[in-house]
């Protein structure tokens, strides 16, 4: 649901974005780099949500437009390096235009249908473009990709983009612009029709519109914004390589948007921030982080289709009900056993990963501040026991949680 936004929210967002790189903990180059990555991912995710959340189009190849936008931007940056008098801050426009052009070209053929067929076609096109990129080194730069400099350019207002802080502000500014535009798009006739096509493409025909045309338009626009994100990617890393168009990147943005929550505009941003953070920091703690990510994703698909944003709105709504106390009590009971079960599962996973992927690191490791030896049976047994007991207890206690939520739902529904 795209709620009607008030100008105050946008102002607040702008202030937040301006202030973030000065927050303690994020003031380092690492922190600002993280924020920059989040910003780029947020634009990419927002563009993807135009397709998935707003129009019901599941694409497995959206990275094509991100990547092609990135490559075109990289070449544009090289032209600037060679003397073209355009400020670096405008490079993403080239990316957006490239994304738009390719979106129109591929979209004309691929948006005839929705649903599973669209998903498969997007998969095929994605693989095709990725394969092509490895075969045409003059444009795609072969294995090393295309490099460009973001400092060798005109410096209006003294901005030379040498520092990560300046790069962040360009990304943040474009994020604000892109979010504003995409949000506004959803409040136009075509935007509303996108939602209608998502809900019932057949009925859309009977009110006089061709659902294919609607899909084509939103597809092209989503591709443009993906290209915009690709352009920022080019500026941030000063290199664009084949992974930018890969199936992995397409899968990544899908995960971001779905985990964040497809039903809300903020969901995409939330998911982008969360997954980017996980990718950057969780991978430092554990080699099993992809497994955790996959399990999180499956959990969201199966149990929390509204994603993180959905969880937030659900809980905010529950605050106004009398069932809140019951929910809190149920959580209080379930949380300890859930933690126990998780501790058991995580331990099993970690020691298994250590054994299979890092045999050279030896069998001794420290988990949850407890030293253990993976060669001995006791860590395995203890972890399995924790998991079994915790899971059994959780299964017993879960009905309490769902009952509490059911009564909250009834209360809210009754008012609706």
């Amino acid at each position, binding site marked *: 649901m795209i709620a009607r936004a008030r100008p105050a929210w946008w102002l607040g967002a702008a202030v937040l974005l301006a202030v973030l790189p000065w927050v303690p903990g994020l003031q380092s180059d690492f922190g600002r780099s993280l924020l920059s990555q989040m910003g780029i991912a947020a634009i990419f995710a927002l563009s993807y949500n135009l397709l998935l959340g707003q129009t019901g189009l599941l694409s497995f190849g959206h990275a094509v437009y991100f990547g092609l936008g990135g490559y075109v931007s990289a070449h544009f940056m090289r032209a600037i390096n060679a003397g073209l008098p355009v400020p670096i801050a405008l490079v993403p426009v080239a990316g957006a235009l490239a994304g738009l052009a390719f979106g129109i070209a591929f979209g004309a053929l691929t948006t005839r249908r929705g649903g599973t067929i669209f998903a498969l076609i997007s*998969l095929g096109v994605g693989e095709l473009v990725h394969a092509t990129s490895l075969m045409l080194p*003059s444009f795609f730069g072969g294995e090393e990709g295309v490099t460009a400099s973001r400092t060798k350019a005109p410096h209006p207002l003294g901005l030379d983009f040498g520092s990560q802080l300046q790069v962040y502000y360009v990304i943040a500014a474009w994020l604000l612009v892109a979010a504003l535009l995409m949000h506004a798009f959803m409040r136009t006739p075509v935007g509303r029709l996108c939602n209608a096509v998502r809900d019932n493409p057949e009925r859309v025909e009977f009110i006089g519109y061709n659902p294919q045309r609607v899909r084509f338009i939103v597809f092209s626009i989503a591709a443009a914004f993906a290209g915009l994100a690709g352009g920022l990617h080019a500026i941030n890393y000063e290199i664009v390589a084949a992974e930018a168009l890969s199936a992995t990147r397409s899968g990544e943005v899908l995960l971001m948007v779905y985990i964040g929550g497809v039903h809300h505009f903020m969901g995409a941003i939330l998911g982008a921030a969360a997954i980017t953070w996980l990718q950057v920091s969780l991978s430092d703690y554990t080699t099993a982080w992809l497994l955790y990510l996959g399990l999180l994703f499956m959990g969201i698909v199966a149990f929390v289709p509204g994603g993180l944003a959905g969880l937030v709105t659900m809980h905010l709504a529950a605050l106004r009900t009398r069932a809140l106390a019951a929910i809190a009590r149920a959580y209080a009971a379930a949380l300890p056993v859930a933690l126990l079960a998780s501790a058991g599962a995580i331990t099993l996973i970690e020691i298994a990963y250590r054994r299979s992927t890092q045999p050279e690191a030896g069998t001794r490791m420290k988990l949850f501040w407890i030293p253990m030896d993976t060669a001995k049976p006791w860590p395995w047994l203890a972890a399995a026991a924790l998991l079994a007991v915790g899971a059994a207890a959780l299964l017993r206690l879960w009905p309490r949680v769902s009952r509490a939520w059911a009564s909250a739902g009834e209360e809210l529904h009754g008012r609706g």
Partner: protein
Amino acid sequence: MREIVAFSLLNGAVYGLLLFMLSSGLTLIFSMMGVLNFAHASVFMLGAYFSWQISRWIGFWPALVVAPLLCGLIGAAIERYGLRGVHRQGHVAEILFTFGLAYVIGELVIMGWGRNPIENRVPAVIDFAAFRVFGTSYPFYKVLMTLISVGMFTFLYLAFKRTRVGLVIQAALTHPQMVGALGHDVPRLFVLVFAIGSALAGLAGVIGGFALLTEPNMAAALGPIVFVVVVVGGLGSIPGAFVASMLIGIVQTFAVAVDYSLMDLLRTLGASVPASPFLREVVSVKLAQAAPMIPYLLLVLVLIVRPRGLMGTRET
């Protein structure tokens, strides 16, 4: 020249049969339930890993039976305890669930056996030459593969045409809602179909594990191609899957052997070579380089021109 043609044909046919073994299971699942099972190739991968592990414990021939059974059980569990709750959310959610599952299975394989390929060599019992073609020996395990996939085809044919359950499943392949309306226990059927499909994938994995590299990435490498086969062959059609598998298997194997490019063709025809370096690059791509793209090209073309596929009976 004759050698290349003969070997490409043989190898292409074997590759095609491998694709068929994989895609027959997916056709069942996709056609009957509309679920684009991204985890299908992952179960295939599990079959390869299980067979290696079981072979080490009790030998190859038991593994040939036990590994597919395990995979069938896993498939049944996926449907019964996982997908069943997701069906009511629609096809997109189903696809996403299996997509996540593929991710997770891939990671679990790494957790169990590590990131590197395992030495899944052809077991000694079947590692001998079957016959000789143009002086080079043709391995027996490839013949075994052929036998197994022909066996699969026969089994599926008999099971569908001659048993009651088979008839019901056949009907459900093309008219799933109607079958439910007629009073059949569709959820139980779903579990059965998922189990059979997964067992077939597991069986394909046992054999495919030798033909291909057994590593955690094998599912991601083969998965998309299997989708292509199912789509090109057509929904609801096992014979279609067979035709498409052979087509793609043979064409791709032949293409990989062709070391010529459009540029060479232009030169032989005496036509002029494009001036711009970019275009020149495009036409210099050798067919062998472009071979991996052929299935996807076919996929996109078929979906645009004839979404029903070659022999399909419905579109989704």
